[in-house]
C-alpha cells in the first residue's frame, strides 16, 4: 500500500522556483530519506507533506487520501524538528500530551499512551522536567516521544540529529533505525548528511536545485549514481570523477585516463558497461571510481581475479584515519583518492603500486552529466 504519493509538486517563492515538479511514491513501512545540500528544497517538500506550506501545483496523498486541502492536524502525521520544538514552559509529560489534549483524547488514554511511549524511549524518569533541564539527546527523545504517541500513518523528521554532537548522533541514528524496525512505521526523513541517508534509508531521494536527481535504494544510489551530482554528493570521501576516453581493447572496450600521456592508465570495462559505452567509443567521458576501488597492490576484489588491475602511481599525500589510510595519488595526470589498509606504509612523494577494482566503474556523459554505463 502506498503511504505517501507526491505528484507534480511545484513551489515558488517570489521569482525563485524551489521545487520543480517532484514525483515520489513511498510504500507503507518504508524509510524514505530526502537528502541534498542546503537550499535544495528538501525542507520545503517536507513542509508541503506536513501541510505547513501549500504546494503551488501538484498533489499530495497520504495513505491513499488526497490531502491538499487537509489541515496539518488532520493529515495523520507526526513531525520531529531540528530544533526539537519542545514547548519550553511545559513539562515533558505536557509536551507529549499536548496533541492528545487538542484532540480531546480522554485522560486515561493519554496516561496510557505516555506510559507506553516513555518506556519505549526510556524517558519515564524525565516526565516532570522542563525542556531546559534536559540534555540534547534527552530533548531529542522527548521530541520523538511526542511524535510516537500519535501513532500516525506517516512520521516526518526534519534534520533531527543536526544539533547533536557526533557521538550522540551515531547513537541516535542507530536508535531511530531500530525504532523503525520495531514499530514498522513509514518515515520521511530530511537530512543533508549523506551518511545518515545511506545508513537509515530503505530508499533515498537525492535532491538538488528543486529536483529529485535520483530516487532509489541506497545500494543503487551508491553504486550506480544517476548523474555526476549524485556521484559526488553521496559517499565520503567522494567518488573520483576524472576525464577519460573510451577505446577498444582486444574484443572489448576500455576507459583510458590520461590518453596520449606516457603514464596513461587503461581500465577494461565490464560486459554490462560496454552496452552503454559503445556509443561513446573514441570519445571523451567522465569516469567515476569510488576511492575504495583503489587499494594496496595485494588486495583482491571479490572472487574474480580479472577485476583487479595493477597500477603504479606517485603518492602525493596520505591521511591516516586509523581504520584505513586515504591516499591522494596521480593516475594519468589526474588526482585520485584511494583507500588502503592502515598497515601499508606509503612513500609520500615516491611511487607505489595499487590494485584497482574495475568492476564498478561508472561512465558519465560529459555534456549531460548523466550515467551512461
Amino acid at each position: 500500500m502506498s503511504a505517501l504519493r507526491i505528484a507534480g509538486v511545484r513551489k515558488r517563492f517570489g521569482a525563485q522556483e524551489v521545487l520543480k515538479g517532484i514525483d515520489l511514491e513511498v510504500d507503507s513501512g518504508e524509510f524514505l530519506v530526502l537528502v541534498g545540500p542546503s537550499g535544495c528544497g528538501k525542507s520545503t517538500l517536507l513542509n508541503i507533506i506536513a501541510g505547513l506550506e501549500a504546494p503551488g501545483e501538484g498533489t499530495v496523498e497520504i495513505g491513499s487520501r488526497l490531502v491538499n486541502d487537509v489541515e496539518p492536524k488532520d493529515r495523520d502525521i507526526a513531525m520531529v524538528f531540528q530544533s526539537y520544538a519542545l514547548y519550553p514552559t511545559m513539562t515533558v509529560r505536557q509536551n507529549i500530551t499536548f496533541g492528545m489534549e487538542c484532540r480531546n483524547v480522554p485522560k486515561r488514554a493519554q496516561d496510557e499512551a505516555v506510559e507506553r511511549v516513555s518506556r519505549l524511549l526510556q524517558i519515564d524518569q524525565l516526565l516532570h522536567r522542563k525542556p531546559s533541564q534536559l540534555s540534547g539527546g534527552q530533548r531529542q527523545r522527548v521530541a520523538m516521544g511526542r511524535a510516537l504517541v500519535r501513532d500516525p500513518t506517516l512520521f516526518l523528521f526534519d534534520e533531527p540529529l543536526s544539533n547533536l554532537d557526533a557521538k550522540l548522533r551515531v547513537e541516535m541514528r542507530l536508535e531511530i533505525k531500530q525504532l523503525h524496525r520495531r514499530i514498522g512505521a513509514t518515515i520521511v526523513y530530511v537530512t543533508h548528511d549523506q551518511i545518515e541517508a545511506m545508513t537509515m534509508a530503505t530508499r533515498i531521494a537525492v535532491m538538488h536545485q528543486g529536483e529529485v536527481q535520483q530516487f532509489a535504494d541506497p545500494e543503487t544510489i551508491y553504486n550506480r549514481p544517476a548523474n555526476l551530482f549524485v556521484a559526488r554528493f553521496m559517499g565520503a570521501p567522494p567518488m573520483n570523477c576524472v576525464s577519460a576516453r573510451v577505446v577498444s581493447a582486444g574484443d572489448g572496450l576500455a576507459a583510458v585516463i590520461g590518453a596520449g600521456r606516457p603514464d596513461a592508465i587503461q581500465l577494461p570495462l565490464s560486459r554490462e558497461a560496454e552496452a552503454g559505452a559503445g556509443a561513446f567509443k573514441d570519445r571523451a567521458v567522465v569516469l567515476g571510481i569510488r576511492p575504495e576501488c583503489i587499494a594496496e597492490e595485494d588486495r583482491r576484489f571479490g572472487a574474480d581475479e580479472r577485476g583487479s588491475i595493477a597500477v603504479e602511481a606517485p603518492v602525493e599525500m596520505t591521511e591516516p584515519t586509523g581504520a584505513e589510510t586515504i591516499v591522494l595519488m596521480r593516475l594519468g595526470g589526474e588526482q585520485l583518492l584511494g583507500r588502503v589498509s592502515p598497515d601499508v606504509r606509503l612513500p609520500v612523494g615516491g611511487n607505489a603500486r595499487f590494485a584497482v577494482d574495475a568492476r564498478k566503474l561508472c561512465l558519465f556523459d560529459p555534456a549531460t552529466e548523466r550515467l551512461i554505463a
Partner: protein
Amino acid sequence: MLAPWLVHLVLWPPLLVSVVHIIGFTGYTTWISFTSSTLIPENDFVGLRNYNSVLASRNWTIATENLLIFGTGFVVLTTAIGLTLAVLLDQRIRAENVLRTIYLYPMAVSFVVTGTVWSWLLNPSIGIQKLVRGLGWEAFRFDWVVDRDMAIYTIVIAGAWQASGFAMALFLAGIRSVDADLYKAAQIDGAGPWRIYRRVVLPAIWPIFIAVMVILLQYTIKTFDLVRALTGGGPGIATQLPSLVVYDLMFQRGLLGRGSAAAVLMLLYLLAVLLPYFAFVQWRKRRNARHG
C-alpha cells in the same frame, strides 16, 4: 588609541556631573527632609516630623490611593491593549510596518501634549460628549473629567493611549522571537491559533510581561505632566498624585522640608518596584547560567 589624558577628559566630567546631580542631590534632598526647612534650607535635624506630617495629610492619602488606582488601571489596560495589538499585528498582515509606526507614535508625543489634547476631548462642553450629542443622542453623558469619582480613570485612558504602542512593540518583538518550529509543532498537534497563543507563545514570553509591567509601573509613580495638563490634579484634589503633592509642597507652599519628605517617599515607592525586579533579573541570569 586615544591619548591617556583624553580618556580622562572624556570620562571624568560626565561622571562627576552625574555623581553630583544624582547621588549628591538625592542625598541633599534626603537630608533636607529631616530638617525644618521652609522657604530656605535649614540645617537643624528634626527627625521624622516632616514624614509624619506628610503621611498624616489628606492630600498624601488621596495621592497614594490614586496612585494605586491609576497604577493598576494603567498597567492592566496598557498591557491588555498592547498585547491585543501585538497579536493582531502578528498575523502576517500587509502594511505591518506602517501600522506599527502609527501605534508607536503616541510615544513620541510628550505627556503634556497628550494631557492637553485629552483634556479637550474629555471636556463635556467641547469634546466627545458634545460630538455624540450633536449626532442626535441628546442624553449621552461622558463627563468623567469633571466627576470627582471618575476623573482618575480619564488619566488611565489617556496614559494607556500613550503607552499601548510601546507595550505592543515589546510584545511583538517577544512573539517574533519564539522559534517558528514551535508554531509548526503546535499546528501539527492540532492547536488552533487561540490555543497556540495561550498555551505556547504567551507562556514562552513571560519575562517580557514582567519587563513591560515594571516599566509601566515606574512610569505611573513618576507621572506628573500628564495629570498636570489633563486635570491639574482636580476637580479639587480628586486626581492628586504623589508627584503633584511634592510640587505643591515645595513650590506652591514653600515647604522644602515636607516636600523633600514626600519626594523621598516617592523614591521609596519606586525602589519597592525596581529592587524586586533587579533581584528577579539577577536570579534569571544565574539560573540560565546554570542550565546553559
